[in-house]
C-alpha cells in the first residue's frame, strides 16, 4: 500500500483573501507587540498580582496542542494503526507550527525580549533548577525532533521515521509534562501546587490536539475539495472521547485531593470562587460534559458533524481550562498573615483584557494559521485525492 501526498493548489480567490486576512492580522499583532515593547507592559492586562497574561496562556495552550499530536506517531508506528497515515504529515507539520507559535508567544511575554537568548545559555548563564530554563531545552529540542521526524516522513524512510516518531512522541510528553511543572512546583500558589499537574497537562494536550486535528482535517479537506473518510474522523473522535474521560478524571482527582480539609482554601477558590463561572460553564459544561455526551451518543458520535462540534467545543474548553488555571490561580490572594488582609493586598486579583493584548493574541493565532496554509501550499502534506486503499469514499463532507 503506497500513499501519495500532494500540496494544495492555492490559486483560488478565497485562498488569497484568506492569506491576506491572516497576514494583516499578523502585522497588527506585531504592531501590538511593538507597542507593548516600547511602552512597557502597562499596555497589557497584567499586574503585580496577576503577572502572567494572555501570552503565557496561549503559550501553554499551544504547547499542549502541539505535543498531543505526536500520539498519532505512536499509534501508527507502534500500534500499527495505518488508517491514520494519510494525515500524519499534516499533523506533524501542524505540531511544528504550533510549537513555534508557543515559543514566539513566550518571547512576546517576557519583559525584555532582547535578553531572551539568556534562556538558551544552558548551564552557563542560566539557572538549571528553573523550570523555564529546563523547558527552554525541552521546547527547542522538541522543535528539532519534530522537524527531523517530518523530514523522514517526506523522505519516506519507514524505519527512520519510526525511530524519530518515537523520539518526538516521548519528547513531546516530556515537554508538556515540563510545562505542567511550571505550575505544579510553585508551592506559594495553593491552586497550582500539585504533583498531578504534569499528567493533567499531558492528558489535556492529547485531548485538545486530537480535537484540533479533527477540526483541521475536516476544514482543510473541505476547502481543498477532498473527501475525508467518515470512519477516520469518527475513530479520531473515539480517541478524543477516551482522552477526555482521562482528563476529567485527573481534574477531579486533583481538585478532590486539594479540596479535603484542612488545606482546601485554594481548591475552594477554584471551584466556588469569584471566577468559578468560567470553570463550570466554559471548561466543565461546554468543554467536557457536552462533548462527552456527543461523542458517546449512539447517533451523533458516529456522524462527522457531531464529532466536529464536540471537537470545537473541546478545543475552546481546553483553552478556558488554561485561562482559568493561570488567571484564577494567580488571582487567589496570598494569605501573608492569619486574618482578613485589608485593602488591595488582600483583594482578589483582576485581569482586564486590553486592546493591545487582544491584538497580540489574535495576531499570534493568525500568524500560525498563515504558516500552516503556507505549508499546505508549498509542502506535500495532504493525501492525494484517493483514499489509502483506493476504495471509493463513503461520504463527502
Amino acid at each position, binding site marked *: 500500500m503506497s500513499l501519495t501526498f500532494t500540496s494544495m493548489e492555492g490559486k483560488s480567490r478565497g485562498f488569497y483573501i484568506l492569506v491576506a486576512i491572516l497576514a494583516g492580522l499578523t502585522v497588527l499583532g506585531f504592531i501590538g507587540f511593538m507597542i507593548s515593547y516600547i511602552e512597557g507592559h502597562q499596555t497589557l492586562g497584567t499586574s*503585580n498580582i496577576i503577572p502572567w497574561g494572555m501570552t503565557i496562556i496561549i503559550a501553554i495552550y499551544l504547547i499542549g496542542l502541539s505535543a498531543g499530536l505526536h500520539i498519532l506517531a505512536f499509534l501508527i508506528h507502534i500500534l500499527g494503526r495505518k488508517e491514520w497515515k494519510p494525515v500524519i504529515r499534516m499533523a506533524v507539520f501542524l505540531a511544528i507550527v504550533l510549537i513555534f507559535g508557543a515559543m514566539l508567544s513566550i518571547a512576546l511575554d517576557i519583559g*525584555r525580549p532582547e535578553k531572551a537568548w*539568556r*534562556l538558551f545559555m544552558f548551564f552557563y548563564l542560566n*539557572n538549571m533548577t528553573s523550570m523555564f530554563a529546563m523547558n527552554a531545552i525541552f521546547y527547542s529540542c522538541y522543535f528539532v525532533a519534530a522537524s527531523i521526524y517530518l523530514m523522514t516522513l517526506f523522505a519516506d524512510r519507514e524505519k527512520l521515521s519510526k525511530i524519530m516518531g518515537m523520539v518526538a512522541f516521548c519528547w513531546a510528553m516530556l515537554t508538556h509534562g515540563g510545562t505542567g511543572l511550571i505550575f505544579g512546583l510553585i508551592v*506559594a500558589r495553593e491552586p497550582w501546587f500539585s504533583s498531578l499537574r504534569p499528567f493533567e497537562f499531558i492528558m489535556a494536550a492529547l485531548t485538545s490536539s486530537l480535537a484540533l486535528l479533527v477540526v483541521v482535517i475536516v476544514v482543510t479537506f473541505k476547502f481543498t475539495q477532498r473527501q475525508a473518510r467518515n470512519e477516520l474522523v469518527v475513530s479520531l473522535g473515539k480517541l478524543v472521547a477516551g482522552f477526555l474521560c482521562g482528563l476529567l478524571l485527573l481534574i477531579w482527582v486533583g481538585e478532590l485531593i486539594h479540596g479535603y480539609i484542612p488545606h482546601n482554601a485554594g481548591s475552594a477558590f477554584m471551584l466556588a470562587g469569584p471566577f468559578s463561572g468560567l470553570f463550570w460553564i466554559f471548561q466543565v459544561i461546554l468543554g467536557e460534559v457536552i462533548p462527552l455526551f456527543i461523542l458517546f451518543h449512539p447517533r451523533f458520535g458516529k456522524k462527522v458533524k457531531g464529532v466536529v462540534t464536540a471537537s470545537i467545543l473541546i478545543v475552546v474548553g481546553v483553552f478556558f481550562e488554561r485561562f482559568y488555571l493561570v488567571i484564577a490561580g494567580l488571582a487567589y490572594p496570598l494569605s*501573608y498573615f*492569619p*486574618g482578613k*488582609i485589608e485593602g488591595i493586598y488582600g483583594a482578589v486579583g483582576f485581569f482586564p483584557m486590553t486592546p493591545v493584548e487582544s491584538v497580540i493574541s489574535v495576531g499570534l493565532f493568525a500568524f500560525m494559521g498563515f504558516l500552516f496554509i503556507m505549508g499546505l501550499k508549498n509542502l506535500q502534506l495532504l493525501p492525494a485525492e484517493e483514499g489509502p486503499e483506493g476504495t471509493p469514499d463513503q461520504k463527502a463532507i
Partner: protein
Amino acid sequence: MVIDLDKCVGCQACTVACKVENDVPHGSPEEQKWRREIYWNKVIAVTNGKYPRVNTELIPMPCLHCDRAPCVPVCPAKATYRREDGIIMQDYRRCIGCKYCIVACPYGARSFNYKEQEEKPYHRQDLPPDRSVWGPWPFPSRTHGVVEKCTFCFHRIDQGIKEGKKIGKEVVPACVEECPANARFFGDLDDTHSEVSRLLSSRGWLRLREELGTQSKVYYLLK
C-alpha cells in the same frame, strides 16, 4: 531583621524611607488601582474579629530574604540569587522579565516595572556606585520590563563593612533608621551578642507563612 509588632504604629515611614533611599518610583493612584505600583516595603493591615471586638495588626513587609527563597530556584537567568550574607539580590542586567519570581514569591515582595519610570537610578545620587566591583551595581538606570525588590539596602551594608563600621548599630537599612517607633532592628542573626539575637531570645516571635518552609529572615516580635 526583627520587627516589633508591639511598637509598630503603621505610619508607613519605612515605606517612604525606602522609596527615598532606593529611588523607588512614587507611583500614582492610577497605578495603585491597577496594582502596578512598585513597593520594596509595604505595610499591610490584618483584621481579626468583629465589631466591637476587633483587632487590627499592622505588618510591615519588606522582602523577607528567605533562607530557602522560592524565588531563587525559579529564576532562569540567574538574576535572582542569594548573597553569602543571606541577602537575596536581583541583578537587573540579567533579568529577562519573565515574572516567574513574582509568581513564586509567597509574600508578594516583588514588583515589575510596567512602564518607563521617571526615577531612573536605582539608588541615591549621593552614593556613587563602586565601578570596580562586577556585582549588581553599577546599574545605569531603571528600565521597564524587569523585576525589582528590597535589597536590605545592601549598598549601605557594603559601604559600612568597607569603612569598618558595625553593621546593625552604626549601619542599618533606611527603613530601620527612619522608624520613629524604633520598631525595627537589624543585625547579624548568627552573632549571639547582636541586638536581634537578644530580642529573639527574650520575646515570642513568628515568621510569616512558616508552613511553607521558606525560613524567612524577618522575624516579627509578638504583642
